[in-house]
């Protein structure tokens, strides 16, 4: 057992599960989507991204790309949240909630791809 692989797999899967946890619920209902969850998703995704740095394989490159996509989506979601909460002052209206959640949904798709790639790689290793 390679402890590096355990940590790697752990963070990639955790990024997906947390992302899913934030995503489920009614799209435009702010009650169903908690800000702490979004925070956790962002932190775990950041860690997952950094863990993918410096992998020379083709698989590593694609994994890094999916993570970067997820980060981009999540940062956009956090930015939308910050803007409606503090800058325009409208608060989490159904429209704002919907856009934040759909952005995190996009990130989730990227995370799904990450996990699928991870599974493929594991299956191909056969060790």
């Amino acid at each position: 057992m390679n402890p590096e692989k355990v940590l790697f797999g752990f963070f990639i899967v955790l990024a997906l599960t947390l992302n899913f946890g934030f995503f489920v619920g009614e799209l435009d209902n702010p009650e169903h989507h908690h800000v702490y969850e979004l925070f956790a998703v962002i932190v775990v995704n950041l860690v997952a991204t950094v863990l993918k740095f410096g992998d020379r394989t083709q698989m590593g490159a694609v994994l890094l790309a999916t993570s970067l996509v997820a980060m981009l989506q999540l940062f956009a979601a956090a930015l939308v949240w910050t803007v409606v909460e503090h800058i325009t002052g409208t608060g989490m209206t159904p429209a704002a909630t919907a856009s934040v959640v759909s952005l995190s949904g996009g990130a989730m798709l990227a995370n799904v791809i990450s996990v699928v790639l991870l599974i493929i790689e594991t299956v191909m290793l056969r060790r």
Partner: protein
Amino acid sequence: MDNIIFLIFRRMRAPLLALILVYSIAILGMVLIPGRDADGNVWHMDFFHAFYFVSFMASTIGFGEIPHAFTAAQRLWVSFSIFFTVVVWLYSIGTVLALLKDETFQRALTERRFARKIRHLREAFYLVCGYGQTGEALVRSLTERNQHAVVIDILDERVNILQLENLREYVPGLCGDARLPAHLLEAGLNHPLCEGVVALTNSNEANLKIAITAKLLHPEIEVICRADSHDIEANMASFGTDHIIDPFDTFALHLATAIQAPCLSLLQDWLSLGHSNLLKDPVYPPSKGLWVICGFGRFGKAVYEKLRREGLEVVVVEANPDTTGIPSTAFVLGRGTEAETLSQANIERAVGLVAGTDNDANNLSIIMTARELNPDLFVILRQNRKDNDPVIEAVGADMVMLPSQIIANQIRVLLGAPLQHQFVKLVLHQEDEWACELISRISALVNHHAPEVWEVAFTEQDSHAVCAHVKSGKSLTLAQLMTDPRDRQRELPCIPLMLLRHNERTLLPDPGISVQKDDHLLFCGSHQGRDRMEWTLQNENALSYILTGETRPEGWIWRQFSKKGTR
């Protein structure tokens, strides 16, 4: 090279992870701990403000407690987190910055930048391997002729010198081992505009490796090599190296020419000087009598062979006969720096002395000692280091052999003036009287400064006016071409040296000959002469003035007027 970038990324993982971890803990704490606003109501800091606060806390900027003054619980958390966030911030940012400044990483970046520059070169260039004395002289003279070069050298300092050098063209330089094919490829060996590779490193093996790499990876290009030993020369010739330059053999040949035909060797000298230099006086090495050669190394041997072939009596002085070998004729053991050894070699009745050891101080000492014993000696000095120029000049030897200068000169002519190279080769078959006559004609044209040698190609691009004239069926003689475009009564100060027409070479073509399209001519003369001839070649009005003696109206309006006048 890419490995290094990946490695750097890998090493950035730990500091970045630490940063993320510590920041998120600090932010989370700030969000969870309740605070009180100005009115005493409980409020929770939101993520946005927590991130903002932690960012300026960790970087020790510290704007204060915002948006409301903190409660004791919050202050407790902040005082803990200040310590770990600041430490982690310094550690992470410091490590990342150190990695970016890492020498291998910087090198990888420089190499990448260099490779990009080479890829974007849009003009033909030569790849010069080794930027020592020879390389420096060669690159300078190439750029002075508006030719381009790319330099590789193994030492960083020499590449830095290249950047400081005030050259007319931009010359990219790479610090790297030219023996590695990867570096040669990076420097543009495979580039379609790479015209040739010049291997000038001071190691024979390196030059050999460069030559063979170049011949295998880009067989069409010219490969020019410096070589100091006959083995290596034969090896290089075996796989088709185009030109192999041995400075010692070259000089020995030059010496032999000077003994047999002083005018011929003077002619060669003058033509290869470059017009900014002063003319050299002719040298007359004695062709009868005893020669003493001090030092039987590569140089000594080359000179020895040539002098023997001229039928001269030669005595060799050498301190280490075990490593150099012993000549079949007279031989004296010693360095030649002492009067005793020189006397044993009969310096008193000698006519010539060759100070040919590989140590400049010894060579100078040999000359000083020998001159005391015999002041009328003809002295040949081997100069090993260019920076000894002032002392070498002071000793006033009749001939000085500086290998780097000889190689640079030869390659410059080879690359920059192929016609001149052919001319010099052809001239060797001429009589000395022929050369003497040419020398006196040249010296009448130029005073004190060496003549300028230039090629004229009768092509649409290089001589537009003449081509148009010849195309329209009219003839133009060489004599007309050599008329001053400012005053047609006068001749330009130049001599046609050689005509190349359909691969046929004519030495000193007759002025009455008519030029044809695609002819190539080699001229020598003064710098002014060249400038004015250029005018005739490209300017139709100047040409028509030479042919008819009339100044044609230049503008359209004046042409209309002059038509009316003649009608």
